[in-house]
């Protein structure tokens, strides 16, 4: 079972189109979107409609949650006053362009998707969230203490936890087994299609492969492939510069930050 996972498109239509072109060639068995369809770029409605058209199971990101409610707060953790000011422009702009039907779609997106595999004697639970199981806007960075990450995954009964939100992809394997019995759990940040922040300007997504022998007992029994694809960055960056959005967002696309 090949499962394609993508998120954090952030209204970047050229990136989303390039993603679909790339992923369709790889022929996954299923595909899920982990949210944050809108914000920071100009094509909020178009991105929503491309995803709706394909009937892709999708969960809400924090930006979708805010725009769905016509809120002026996206729940983002901006560090500087400049980032905060730019963030206000972005959410105000996105609210101003969002059409009713597309906003209603964002408003009704589910928070989580849980997929239970029954392959062996053990269950294998795949949980899809945007930030973390407990908060839509929690940042689970790669350096999160193992104890904390395991607690979050155990509480959510997630053997494979996939999430986005930080725009920085990684895969960590943690063992929560006791008394010599292994129980491997996978924490997978799937990166970002339309606003990567890991200094790689290309869009990114994950192909997760579950086999008939995949199990929590065997460390490497699932495969996680981080895929990067090129897209027309200049088209997206220039569109930002020609819009009311801050020019910094165009520069971020060109720098992969």
């Amino acid at each position: 079972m090949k499962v394609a996972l993508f998120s954090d498109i952030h209204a970047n239509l050229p990136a989303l189109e390039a993603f679909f072109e790339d992923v369709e060639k790889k022929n996954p068995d299923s595909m899920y979107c982990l949210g944050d369809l809108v914000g920071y770029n100009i094509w909020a409605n178009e991105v929503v409609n491309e995803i709706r058209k394909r009937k892709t199971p999708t969960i809400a990101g924090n930006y979708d949650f805010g725009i769905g409610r016509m809120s002026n707060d996206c729940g983002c953790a901006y560090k500087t006053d400049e980032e905060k000011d730019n963030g206000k422009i972005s959410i105000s702009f996105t609210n101003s362009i969002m059409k009713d039907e597309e906003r209603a779609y964002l408003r009704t997106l589910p928070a989580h998707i849980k997929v239970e595999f029954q392959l062996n004697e053990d269950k294998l639970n795949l949980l899809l969230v945007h930030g973390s199981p407990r908060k839509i806007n929690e940042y689970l960075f790669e350096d999160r203490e193992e104890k904390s990450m395991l607690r979050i995954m155990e509480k959510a009964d997630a053997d494979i936890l996939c999430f986005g939100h930080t725009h920085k992809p990684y895969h960590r394997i943690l063992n929560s087994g006791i008394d010599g019995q292994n129980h491997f759990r996978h924490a997978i940040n799937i990166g970002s299609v339309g606003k990567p922040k890991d200094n790689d300007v290309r869009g990114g997504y994950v192909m997760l492969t579950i086999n008939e022998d995949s199990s929590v007992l065997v460390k490497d029994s699932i495969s996680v492939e981080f895929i990067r694809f090129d897209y027309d960055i200049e088209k997206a960056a220039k569109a930002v510069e020609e819009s009311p959005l801050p020019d910094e967002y165009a520069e971020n696309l060109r720098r992969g930050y």
Partner: protein
Amino acid sequence: MEFPNDLIYSKEHTWIKLQDNIGTIGITAFAQKELGEIVYTDLPNVGYSFQQDEVCGSVEAVKTVSQLFMLVSGNIIETNKQLLKEPTLINSAHFGDGWLIKIEIKELTELENLLRSTQYKKLKN
């Protein structure tokens, strides 16, 4: 921002309130603002003891995780169980119901290494 005079502060943005040799510990207004919405507190078990500056727990917020350093050497005598249900009490009542732990202080002289309200306020301005 508040800097209550009856509290003693650390450079790590925690506070301790004294009643004889018992200290109630929490995080400051500045710390909770920097952290944002608190989602979990990892607090030590009652009965454990810690030295001054030793890591004794952590506070998890949506933005990041912050370790808690013990302000003065002491034994844990109580933790705030209400925080398990309502961690955002730390955001809304950081100098009151959002306290974290109570300790029996071993070395009162170590309090001299900490900051008074005016000193902590200067550190923040």
